[in-house]
């Protein structure tokens, strides 16, 4: 995490949740200024689901190191705990989902405006007191703007997993994966509280452990990392198995969701349905290609008069 490049103006304390210059951001790969017509949005096909190696039948990690994977497995196992009889994140393959997402996209899986400049965050103060600054936001207002750090998911995970373990060692003397479940939960609770406090939602005053965790993360967003972990865990639990998680539809089975279906009747809307859950590739093709020449006239098909400029 880069430190601020410029000294703070007198009387203002720069938060360690650092401001990043756009130059130092993409050391790992080239992000060029988009030119007109650059197709920047990754096509969905770019997503590479984990492929099981032939010998073991177990997917291999493509982004995480073995030690990172161990930490991710331990975290997701606490976020959505489970066992064989009541599957959770591990049984659903969530760590492989997260790994595939990170391996598939050098930057973001979703469209993201990544051009600088990036904001500087300060502890304390108000918009009025920081109004003379260039791009300065008081820390307690940052949440209202959403993602602004410029850090890519790959970096956030690499650095965040390291910081999480640093914090676990400083607090309990062992890495996160080697702690008892209660200790792991305590750590995740601290991170969650930091995130909620950043959004003005935490109860009570800040606890010492929140400061310790924030310090361990070097100000680079302990709360934000928790938020990313939780979001990605939920995605892996409940997205189509095509993406590497929700193995055997355990996520959908948990909540009673039958997966994508073509249609429901008005009666089913009132009394429910008895369909078995099915993944996307179980969906009956709407218009099998063999019938492409006999598509019902009610379906609008390409017409002349529309073309790329």
């Amino acid at each position, binding site marked *: 995490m880069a430190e601020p490049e410029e000294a703070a103006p007198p009387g203002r304390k720069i938060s360690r949740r650092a401001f990043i210059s756009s130059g130092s951001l993409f050391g790992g790969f080239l992000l060029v200024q988009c030119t007109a017509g650059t197709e*920047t949005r990754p096509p969905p096909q770019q997503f590479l689901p984990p492929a099981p190696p032939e010998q073991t039948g177990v997917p291999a990690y493509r982004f995480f190191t073995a030690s990172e994977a161990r930490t991710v497995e331990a975290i997701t196992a606490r976020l959505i705990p489970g066992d064989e009889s009541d599957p959770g994140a591990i049984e659903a393959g969530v760590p492989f989902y997260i790994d595939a997402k990170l391996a598939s996209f050098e930057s973001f899986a979703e469209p993201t405006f990544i051009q600088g400049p990036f904001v500087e965050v300060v502890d304390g103060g108000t918009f*009025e007191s920081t109004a003379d600054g260039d791009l300065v936001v008081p820390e307690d207002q940052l949440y209202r703007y959403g993602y602004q750090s410029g850090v890519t998911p790959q970096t956030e995970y690499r650095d965040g997993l390291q910081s999480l373990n640093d914090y676990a060692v400083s607090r309990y003397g062992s890495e996160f994966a080697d702690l008892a479940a209660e200790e792991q939960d305590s750590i995740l609770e601290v991170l969650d509280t930091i995130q909620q406090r950043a959004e003005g939602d935490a109860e009570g005053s800040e606890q010492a452990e929140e400061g310790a965790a924030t310090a361990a993360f070097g100000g680079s967003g302990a709360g934000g990392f928790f938020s990313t972990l939780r979001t990605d865990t939920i*995605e892996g639990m409940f997205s189509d198995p095509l993406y590497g998680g929700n193995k055997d539809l355990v996520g959908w089975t948990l*909540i009673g969701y039958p997966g994508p279906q073509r249609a*429901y009747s008005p009666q089913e809307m009132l009394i429910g349905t008895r369909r078995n859950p099915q993944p*996307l590739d179980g969906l009956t093709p709407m218009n099998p290609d063999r019938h492409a020449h006999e598509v019902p006239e009610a379906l609008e098909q390409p017409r002349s008069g529309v073309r790329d400029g």
Partner: protein
Amino acid sequence: MVVQNDPVDIVTIGGGMTASILAALILPSTSHTMVSLEQGAARWTYPDFAHNHDSLRFNNRYELMQDLNQVSWTWRPNENAPALPMRQYGSFNPGQGLGGSMVHWTALTWRFLPSDFAYRTHHIERYGADKIPDEMTVQDWPFSYLDLERHYDALEYDMGVSGQAGNLNGRILEGGNPFEGPRQRPYPNPPLAQSAFGNLFHEAVQGLGLHPFPTPSGILSQGYTDPFGNVRAGCLYCGFCTRYGCEVGAKTSPLTTWLPPALDTGRYEVRTRSHVIGIETDDDGRATGVRYVNADGNEFFQPAELVITSAYTLENIRNLLLSRSKAHPDGVGNDRGRVGRNYTYQLAQNPASGLWENERFNFYMGNGCTIPQVFDYNADNFDHSDVDFIGGARMYPSAGQREPISSAQNLLEGLTDRRWGAEWKQTLGSSWDSVGSIGIEGESPAYEGNFCDLDPRFTDAWGLPLLRITFDWRENERNMYRFLANRSEEMIKAMGADRTTVTRQLAPYRYDVYQSTHATGGCIMGTDPGNSVTNGYGQVWDTPNVFVTGAALFPQNPGANPSGTVGALAYRAAEAIRDRYFKAPGELLT
């Protein structure tokens, strides 16, 4: 090297709802030529929407939305705060591609209320001038509900809207919306099927003395052949509606309705993946056409007699502001500094949620319109004498189309101790289909301090300044929200929830959480150039051969979705352009 295209009569910036309406209404009975420039790609019901039930891709990764990699909009809560770009999708989701946002819309199709059109006058007459806060810049529309009624009527029949009339030529009908303005005909199709949760709401609020009625929807409840001759299928209640294209064409969009008759003339062309970078004007300040860049990065100039900016609200504002010249140094339409003024939004929240143990509501079926609505607390349908605000909201129960990923994120807020872990998982497992809420879609009045201009710092992929939004809620909205949260609580309790949670205060506006794509105002209609950017037809006062369409024209935003009125305004403009404009091009219509 800019390529000069052959001139056309009409060019539109954007190939969405209003562009296709103008083409379908103007071209068939005239000899005009028209081109629409659409920044996104072409897509059609078949084959493009045949395999689209992938919620991760469409709902959570915004497949159909404007490409944030290239263009965004900055926001700040007030003029002291720095403006930062929306780096990932949050507050609103403008679409791109052939058909625009109307391809992914939820399809609620409202008429605004008579009092919405006479907003300022109505409130002053009933409550006195002091009722309107000083900073509020709300004003009347330049015409009345009755002036727009026949356009609403034509739009509803072309779209095949499903609904139940509440006011037929002044006669109040049981089961419809008793607060609506008079309509000349019933809806062309009966209401959509109602959901289990919708029925529960319906009975409960009737018991509270309110007047629930089915949502008027641009989704067909049955097969329909429209006045253009398009043959269309009814809704399959599949549960993949908002943020998806409809694979059977039951959800009305330009693809199902206006593009076929427009393209059939042979005098309409939509150029996709063409990004407009400005309106050109001559020394006299008259528009000459638009510049655009195609997918290969080549630049073109498209000359036209008439230029129409028909994109999303924020793009329309920005198109005018970016078009700076000697004749219009601050942008087209901005000679009097009115562009960007009266920017408004939509107070869309879910104040009360409940959990019904051992009940399942099948929320993942249906669509966003398979529910009733109440208008008893909308607009001035209730007496505001003893409350400390003006305005209101439509109120409604959770609709269908629940999607597992995004719903799991926050469905249990306030109902479990922790947002993760064993208890959260267990509750989600037992109650994912048992938690519902009351939603409000409230008015957003205009204020002097809420406006849009060009950002001094951030630029898009073409090096052009982003639009900067300055916006936050005010005391009036906070008071209105508190009142509506209490009403929501009454409703959720009347519905017999076992556990309830109520959010009693309106939090400050935040940019990172989806609320509504109803960004409105900024190029508003009015009676003269001192109070507006355009006249009642969307014709720009200072550059009369430029028109603006869409919700950017709204002087302030009522408590209902904009598309029905966006459509009716486009019908009104299309008729004026077709029948009168070309007799004296460039003259202001009266």
